[in-house]
C-alpha cells in the first residue's frame, strides 16, 4: 500500500491533488459529476470584498498546448460567498476548503480574509497577489518582494488560518518574492499563477481578448512552473503548493520532486472535467512504477543526491 497523504500546515490531505482556483467554481458543477470528497481539497474561485462581473468577453482564447483567460475575478463578493456558497458547499464537501482571496488594496485583502477567517470550513487562505487580468491590483503586489511582504504581514495579522501567498510567474526573481513572503510570516506559497500573454485575431487584427492580455495556463507552462517550484524550494522552508499545467499523476510526481508539498490542477479541469478524480485514481500505480512508497517523502526529491 502506497501512502498518498500529505500535510499543509498541520492539516492532513488524503492526497496532494487540489483543483486550482478559478477552474472549479465553488465546487457545485463538479459535485454533479463525481464525489468531490475524493480530492485533497480544492481552492475556490478567487473571491473579493465586493461582487465583480469581471472583464468583458471574449475572455478565453486557445493557444498551443494551453489557453488564455481574462476572466478578471468574476465572483459574487465575500459576503455572498459566506452566506450562499459555503452553506451549499457544506452539503457536497466535508473537508476543509482553500479560500482563494484577491484584492485591489491591502485593506481589501485584510477585510476579505478577516471575514473568511471566521468560517470553520475554510482550512487555508490562498492570497492571490498575482492575477494578471485585473488592472491596478493583483499582480502588482506579486511583482515586488516588498509589496508581497506587506500584503502577507497585513493578512497574517487578520487571520489565524494558515496563509498561502499565491505568486506571479511574471517576475525576474520569484524566489526573492517567496522569501519575502516567508519572512513576513506566510505559512506557505502557491505557484504559479498564469503567465501574461496575448493572442491577436488575424481577422479583426486586434487582440483576441476584450481585455487585450490574458493569463496563459495549461500544459504549455508546465516546465516553467516546475522550474519556479524548484527555485522557490531552494529559497524557503515553508510548504509550496505547485501548479501550472499539471494534467496527470506523473505531472503531480514531477511537481513534488521539484519541491511541491501539494499540487493544484487548473486548466485541465476545464477540458477534462474528471481529471482530478482520475489523477487521484492513477497516483498509486504511478507511484509504484517509479518506486515511491510515500508522496510526502519525495517532496523536493530532485534536489538531493
Amino acid at each position, binding site marked *: 500500500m502506497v501512502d498518498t497523504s500529505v500535510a499543509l500546515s498541520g492539516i492532513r490531505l488524503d492526497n496532494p491533488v487540489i483543483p486550482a482556483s478559478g477552474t472549479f467554481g465553488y465546487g457545485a458543477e463538479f459535485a454533479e459529476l463525481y464525489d468531490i470528497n475524493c480530492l485533497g481539497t480544492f481552492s475556490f474561485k478567487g473571491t473579493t470584498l465586493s461582487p465583480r462581473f469581471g472583464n468583458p468577453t471574449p475572455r478565453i482564447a486557445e493557444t498551443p498546448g494551453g489557453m488564455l483567460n481574462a476572466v478578471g475575478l468574476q465572483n459574487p463578493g465575500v459576503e455572498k460567498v459566506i452566506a450562499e456558497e459555503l452553506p451549499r458547499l457544506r452539503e457536497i464537501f466535508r473537508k476543509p476548503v482553500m479560500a482563494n482571496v484577491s484584492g485591489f488594496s491591502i485593506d481589501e485583502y485584510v477585510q476579505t480574509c478577516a471575514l473568511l477567517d471566521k468560517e470553520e470550513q475554510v482550512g487555508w487562505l490562498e492570497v492571490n497577489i498575482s492575477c494578471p487580468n485585473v488592472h491596478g491590483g493583483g499582480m502588482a503586489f506579486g511583482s515586488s518582494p516588498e509589496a508581497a511582504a506587506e500584503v502577507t504581514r497585513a493578512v497574517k495579522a487578520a487571520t489565524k488560518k494558515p496563509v498561502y501567498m499565491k505568486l506571479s510567474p511574471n517576475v525576474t526573481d520569484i524566489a526573492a518574492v517567496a522569501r519575502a513572503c516567508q519572512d513576513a510570516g506566510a505559512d506557505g506559497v502557491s505557484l504559479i499563477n498564469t503567465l501574461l500573454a496575448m493572442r491577436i485575431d488575424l481577422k479583426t487584427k486586434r487582440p483576441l481578448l476584450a481585455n487585450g492580455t490574458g493569463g496563459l495556463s495549461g*500544459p504549455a507552462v508546465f516546465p516553467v512552473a516546475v522550474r519556479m517550484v524548484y527555485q522557490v524550494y531552494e529559497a524557503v522552508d515553508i510548504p509550496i503548493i505547485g501548479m501550472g499545467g499539471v494534467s496527470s499523476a506523473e505531472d503531480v510526481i514531477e511537481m513534488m520532486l521539484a519541491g511541491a508539498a501539494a499540487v493544484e490542477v487548473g486548466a485541465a479541469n476545464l477540458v477534462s472535467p474528471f481529471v482530478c478524480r482520475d489523477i487521484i485514481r492513477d497516483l498509486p500505480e504511478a507511484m509504484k512504477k517509479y518506486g515511491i512508497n510515500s508522496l510526502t517523502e519525495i517532496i523536493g526529491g530532485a534536489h538531493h543526491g
Partner: protein
Amino acid sequence: MTQGIYRIEYNRRLTADVWEMRLTGDTGAVTAPGQFINIKLEGLFLRRPISICDWDGEGITIIYKVVGRGTAALSGAEPGQDLDVLCGLGNGFDVSKCGERTVVIGGGVGVPPMYGLAKALQKAGKTPIAVLGFNKKEEIFYEDQFRALGIETTVTTVDGSYGVKGFVTDALRSSYDYFCACGPLPMLKAVYNATATSGLLSFEERMGCGFGACMGCSCKTKYGNKRICKDGPVLEKEEIIW
C-alpha cells in the same frame, strides 16, 4: 452532462463549408433541444462547442461550418473514428414556454438547433413554423428536412438568389405567438427588435469549459449574471440587455 466516447457514423458535406455529422453514443444527458456538445480534438487544447441538431436514443446529429483549425479537423474525421464528447450542455429551449404557433428562426449555422426544436415542438403537440436565413442559394441546407416535418418553412437569402430576398426579419409575416431564434449576433438583435411577442434567443460565446466552471462565457442579463454555457445558451427576450 456526461463525458463519453462517440463513434462517427457519417460525416458528410452539406454545402461548400458546412458538414453534417452523426455520432453514435449515449444521449441520456440530452434534455432539451438547443443544448450543445463539446468536442475534444487531437492537438487542440480547448473543446469545440457545437449545437445538437437532432438526437434519438442511439445518437446525435450535428451540423458545423468549417471556420478554423478545430472545425477543419472535424471535417477530416472519418466514419468509425471515436470522439471524446461532453454531452447535454446548456439549458436548451424550454418547449413548455413556447406558444402553439412558435416561429423558429435560424440563421446560417444557427439553423441546426432549430431543427431539433421544431421536432420537439411538434412532439409537444404544437405547430411550429420555420424561417431559415442564408446568404445565398449555395449555402442553404436542411430546407428539405424542415419541409419533411410538414412545417411551413420560409427560406431567406441576403442576395435574393432563392426564396425571400433579405433577412429572416423580412420573412416574419405569418402570424406567430412566440419565437425562438439562433444565429449571428446581428440577426439576433434584428429579431429582438422585429418581434412583438416573447421569445427565446440562443447565444454564442468563446468558452473555456462549457459546463459552468470557469466564468469564461459570462454575460449580464436583467436577471443577473449568467454563464452562456450553463445558464444559457438560451436566454429569454425579456432578460436581455440591449
